[in-house]
C-alpha cells in the first residue's frame, strides 16, 4: 500500500495529515500488518488533550495490544466512531476511512521533524531487515 505523500509519519507508526491548525491522525499500513486482525479500538473523547509522544489510545488485534502515540499536541475535536463497530476498517483502509481522531493543534512545531513518506518507507524497510536478520 502506498504511503500518502502529504502525510508525516512517526517511528511508532502513526501518520498525521495537517491542514492549517487541524490535523487527522491514524496508524500506518505497516502497523496494521504487524498487528493482524484488528478487533478493538479505544480512543479519547472529543475535548481531550493529547500530547506529542504520549499514548492517547489503543488498538487491539486478536493477539496483541498496541498503544497509539500522538504525533503532535492538540485537542481532540472528533473521533472516528465507525471504528467501534467496524475495527477491521483499520486493516482494510488504514490511511483513509480508518482515521482515528481529528485534533486542533496547539503547537505545530515538531511536525516538520517527522518523517515524510520516502523517509518512512526507508525506515520500515530497514526495520524489516533487522527482524529478518
Amino acid at each position: 500500500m502506498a504511503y500518502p505523500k502529504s502525510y508525516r509519519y512517526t517511528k511508532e507508526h502513526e501518520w498525521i495529515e495537517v491542514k492549517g491548525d487541524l490535523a487527522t491522525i491514524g496508524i500506518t499500513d505497516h502497523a496494521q500488518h504487524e498487528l493482524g486482525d484488528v478487533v478493538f479500538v479505544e480512543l479519547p473523547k472529543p475535548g481531550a488533550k493529547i500530547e506529542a509522544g504520549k499514548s492517547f489510545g489503543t488498538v487491539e488485534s486478536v493477539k496483541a495490544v498496541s498503544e497509539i502515540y500522538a504525533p503532535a499536541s492538540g485537542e481532540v475535536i472528533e473521533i472516528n466512531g465507525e471504528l467501534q463497530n467496524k475495527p477491521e476498517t483499520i486493516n482494510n483502509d488504514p490511511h483513509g476511512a480508518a482515521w482515528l481522531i481529528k485534533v486542533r493543534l496547539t503547537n505545530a512545531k515538531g511536525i516538520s521533524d517527522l518523517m515524510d513518506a520516502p523517509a518512512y518507507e526507508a525506515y520500515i524497510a530497514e526495520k524489516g531487515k533487522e527482524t529478518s536478520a
Partner: protein
Amino acid sequence: MPVEYPSSGGLIVEHKAVRGSVGVFDVSHMGDIRIRSGKKPGGALAAVQHITMNDASKLAIGQAQYSAMLYPQGTFVDDLIVHRLGEDDYLLVINAGTREKDIYWVRENTKAFDCVVEELSDAYTQLAIQGPRAAEVVQKLTDADLSGVKNYWFTHGTVCALKNTLIARTGYTGEDGFEIYVPSDEPTSEKVWNQVMEAGRGFGIVPCGLGARNTLRLESKMALYGHEISDKINVWEAGLDRYCKLEKGNFIGRGALERAKAAGVTRTLVGLEMIDRGIARDEYSCCNEAGEKIGVVTSGSPSPTLGKNIALVYVPPAYSALGTILYVEIRGQKYKAQVVATPFYKRQKKAAAPRLA
C-alpha cells in the same frame, strides 16, 4: 511456526477454517520421547506409570491418552499425550518449551526401571490436520482406513508414500483431526506439507499459525503450559481430575495430591466472558465487586468463534459459581465480566446415522 500466515488471510481466517472445514499446523517443535521395556516385559509400563498421572495400564496397543508428569508437590512438569505403540513400547508427545526439562526429568526418574528412553524429537516432523473435514483430507493421502480410528486412537499406514507412518486422531483445537509423524528431513517434510495442502485444496485448507492454535485451544479450554498449568499449580486447581488416577498405585506427585485433596483447593480455574467492552489478556488482574484482587488471567483473548472476549482465570472457589460478576483490570480501569460455563466452545457431535427399522 509463525504466529499467522499472511497467505492464509490472517489469524481469524485460519481459526474459522479449522472450526468450519480444515487447517494444517506444522507442530514439529513438539517433543517426542519413546520408552521401551528392557530385557523383560513390563518395564516400560512401570516407568510410564511412575512418571505420569493417568493410568497407562488401561491403554490398548493403538490407543493414546492425555496425561501429565508431576513434581512431588503435585504440580506440573508438563502435560503430554501417551501413545501405546506396542506391547512394551510407549511414545510420549511433550511440549516444545519444556522439552529439555522433560527429557531430563524422564531420564532421571526412570533410572530405577528396566526400560530404554530415547528422544526422537528431531527425527519427526509433526503435522496437525484439524477440522471437521480433516479426516477426508488425510484419507486422500493414506491407504490406512481412518474411519475405524476413534478419537485418541492411532494407526500406522503409508502416507504420501512414506511407509509405517504414525497417524493419530489427536489435536489441540477442540475439533476432529489427525496428527501425523513423518521423517524430519526437509525434502520429506516439504513434500508431505505440499501434498496435504493439495489434498485439502477443495476444502479450502489453509496453513495455520501459533495465533490460531492459541485461540482454538483457549475456546476449548485446553491447558497451555506456563499459563493454566505450571510448577506452581496442582492438578485439582487446574480441574484436570479426570486425567489423574490416584487408584492406579503410586506415581510421582500422588502423595501431595492426596494431601491437597483432603485440605481442599484455595483456587480454581474458571471461564470469564467480558460484559464491558474490553479484552482481558494474559496476566491481567481480576477483582471482586469490592475491588479486591482475587486472581490473575492465565489466558485471555477475543474468541473468533463466539465473537466475544473470553478468559481463563484462577479465583478462590467462592467466586466460581456461574454468573458471578467479576472485574478485569485493563490499563488501570475495571471492566465487568461474568463467570461462564467452560469449555467456551464445544464441537457438535455428528448426528448418529438414522437406524433402519
